[in-house]
């Protein structure tokens, strides 16, 4: 089983908070990897929010290929952040870890966001494909105000290795996953959290319905719906599909992945539309066991469970800072002074939604709204 540690805050904070929370939950992960996604970047990135950040890992050769490609497309490098890595036993260092901020090519600079997003996505996919075979280029994200780091190893050691404890790197939302490697070979593209066009998720658990979901998403012909090195990547794409492609409000994500029974739907005010959804998105229904934590482009965070098996998950905090964790001990490490009686353990019908800047926590219930 993996462990998840997400924090959303009105203030910038260090991703080390997530890593320390993961450390408290260490019994639940085996240190086979960690993924971090930072959204709402602070520090040196604060002034660069409008520019896309390319996050990834390259070999020496891969870096040359990457530079050549980016130059050819017309992206101009504005700023490079590289972690100040330290030698840590057990972690094999790769050549280049980076988060590079680029300026858009001239012809795209004034284009609407949608067109820019498509350019970023295509660029990310092209870079991925250029370096996939020899693993010379591994790209996690290419999007404004998003930074992703992933590596094999124990989360705390990785934090030390990447120098995050001494870094000024900060963000308002950080998703971190401590990985438990089970049935898949260690591949950084299989490492959570996953990200596509402003939407990010990480998941705890195994997705029993992976194959039909993957086939359905792959058949949408939507650029970026590829990969699926992990059975959890589909959760991110379902979120993007539901909210961006179909334009549904966020809480319908819960209806899509864990649809109600028809007689339960019939008791809802939106029964007719919800019935249509249930039918049309039938292949996206999950069967768990899964706890999904994610964010949307506006900075809303959420936690949701499957309908039967459930994975550990709890949300708690104070106004201005909330944590979404696999375990209570993780929550204690991030927001020790909170009122624990207000902690939320989402159950089969619930979706916990935290508004941007951790303003408030809402629990949306499938049956009662």
């Amino acid at each position, binding site marked *: 089983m993996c462990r998840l540690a997400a924090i959303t805050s009105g203030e910038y904070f260090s991703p080390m908070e997530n890593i320390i929370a993961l450390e408290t939950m260490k019994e639940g992960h085996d240190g086979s990897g960690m993924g971090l996604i930072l959204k709402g970047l602070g520090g040196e990135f604060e002034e660069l929010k409008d520019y896309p950040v390319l996050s990834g890992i390259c070999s020496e050769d891969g870096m040359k290929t990457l530079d050549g490609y980016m130059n050819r497309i017309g992206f101009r490098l504005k700023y490079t952040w590289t972690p100040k890595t330290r030698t840590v036993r057990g972690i094999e260092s790769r050549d280049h870890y980076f988060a590079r901020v680029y300026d858009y090519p001239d012809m795209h600079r004034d284009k609407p966001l949608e067109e820019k997003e498509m350019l970023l996505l295509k660029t990310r996919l092209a870079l991925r494909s250029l370096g996939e075979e020899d693993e010379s280029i591994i790209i996690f994200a290419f999007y404004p105000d998003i930074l992703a780091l992933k590596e094999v190893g124990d989360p705390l050691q990785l934090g030390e290795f990447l120098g995050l404890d001494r870094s000024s790197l900060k963000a308002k939302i950080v998703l971190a996953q401590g990985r438990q490697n089970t049935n898949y070979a260690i591949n950084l593209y299989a490492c959570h959290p996953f990200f596509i066009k402003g939407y990010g998720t990480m998941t705890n658990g195994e997705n029993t319905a992976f194959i*039909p979901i993957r086939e359905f998403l*792959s058949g949408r012909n939507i650029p970026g719906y590829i990969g699926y090195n992990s059975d959890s990547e589909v959760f991110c794409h379902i979120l993007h599909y539901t909210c961006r492609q179909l*334009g549904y409000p966020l809480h319908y994500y819960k209806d899509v992945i864990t649809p109600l*029974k028809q007689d339960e739907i019939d008791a809802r005010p939106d029964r007719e539309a919800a019935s*249509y*959804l249930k039918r049309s*998105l039938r292949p996206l229904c999950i*069967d768990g066991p899964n706890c999904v934590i994610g964010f949307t482009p506006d900075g809303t965070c959420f936690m949701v469970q499957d309908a039967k098996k459930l994975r550990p998950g709890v949300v708690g905090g104070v106004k201005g800072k909330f944590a979404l964790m696999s375990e209570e001990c993780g929550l204690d490490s991030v927001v020790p002074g909170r009122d624990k009686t207000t902690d939320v353990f989402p159950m089969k019908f619930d979706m916990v939604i935290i508004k941007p800047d951790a303003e408030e926590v809402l629990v949306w219930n499938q049956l009662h709204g």
Partner: protein
Amino acid sequence: MEPAARLDNNHELAVKDFPYIVRWRDDRCKRCGRCTAVCPMYAIEPAVIVQRALKSEGTMPEPQAVRRVITIVKQTTDISRYCTGCATCTLVCPNEAIEPEYNPAHKFNFHKNRGGHPYRRGGRRNDPAPSTLDRLRFSRISMLTDPALDAGRHEFRIRTYLGRILPAEELPVRVVNNRLEVNRKAGTFVPPVREIYPIMIGSMSIGALSPYMWEGLAMGITYLNEVEGMPVVMCSGEGGMPQRLLRSRFIKYFIPQIASGYFGWDEIVRAIPHMIEDPCAIEIKYGQGAKPGDGGLLMAHKVLKLISEIRGVPMGVDLPSPPTHQTKYSIEEAVAKMIQSMYMAWGFRVPVYPKISGTHTAKAVLNNLVRNPYAAALSIDGDDGGTGAAYNVSMDSMGHPIASNIRECYLDLAAQGKQNELPLIAAGGVGKKGNLAANAAALFMLGASCVSIGKYIMQAAAGCFGDEYNRCNVCNLGKCPRGITTQDPRLYRRLDPDRVAERVVEVFKSVDTELKKIFAPMGRSTELPIGMSDGISADDPAVAERLKIKYNC
């Protein structure tokens, strides 16, 4: 000297040439005559023979040859009265004195064409080997990383959809106050969709079936719907339905079928204004797995009063349905028009779908239907499907197995991203070896949304004798010894419709539990695992490769 009897029996058959040899035991038989009376083929008959016996009655052995006249039960060697192995004789014998025994060395197929008439029969393909479906195993077991569900404790939703499902992008919904609502001004046609149990009773007509059998099935599914809350539906087969049923509220559990003979449709059309409920769906039959490219046939001796009334035809005439719909000249136009006409008849409130036989060209049909926004599903009937009457050559040598046919159709839909839009109904040999739940679940995982059964339910609910050793299989002759496929009241009175209904309910309740027993350890419960191909494996690499599933050994 002249011999007592001539020995030139060259143009006669020996019992050894027959598929079943009747083993009759003189010592057990009390000559009650039940076996000979009940034999549907008159394959056995009472006979008198002269027997030579040695007798010795004194204290010393003094054997004397005596001749005595005794009655026996004799198997005929007239091929028109061959023993079908149905074993009704065994069933009625009070002393276990008679039993037909399968003769694997028979030469039946060499001789069963007297008068130049090829062998015709009912039943299904005479191939007793396990089908592909029976060679698939469910090998993705959830444990530890994904806890298995509890078939007895957890809630399962074993349901499917019948009807064209719009892709989410085309749904007429809009967001109002953070909530989705249906936009009626969009003018989008949302096709009717039924939520049904994923195993349906396939098309068997009143006519092919006896009135009692059909009634039993109908009562069974009605009970399942009304009392057990299981929305099992049943297709009428070609030949109409009783007016009383058409005009009742129970019609919603039935799928009237229209086939190339259009039998019964005058009566159905007349009933439309009087219907108080819509039928579940309409099936247009273009083909049948057991006899691909062949039309239906109800023999004259089955067309009695009830049938003639329901079908709107005179009594006592053969009712052949042509191999193809006479108005059908292309799938793009005529089939589309037929589908639309049927929609129109019920105000676009009833799903209409075609049924074809399994074929290499199924994908072409499928792709035409994909582009027809009214096609509600595609039913594909594989070559292990049964029939009431067909040429043996059609049944044994023609057709396409359902497993790979359904799989390639599903993968074709998936490649287009339309696997949820056009449900595939799989039929033909589902439950051939009695493993209904396992066969059905395998077909779901290969891509079927629903399966259809015929022969299985006749065997399970009414004790149909037929099997793949050509046992019985006289459905075409109206001589069904069980009273299932006959219009002869003397035969169908043997069947108790209430018992049939009871068995239908038992079958569906038990298959429901078995499906849960399959899905629970695989971790699936909320939706049918349609296309969950990582759940199954084959014991043959070639099968695994063809079906794009795992090979396990």
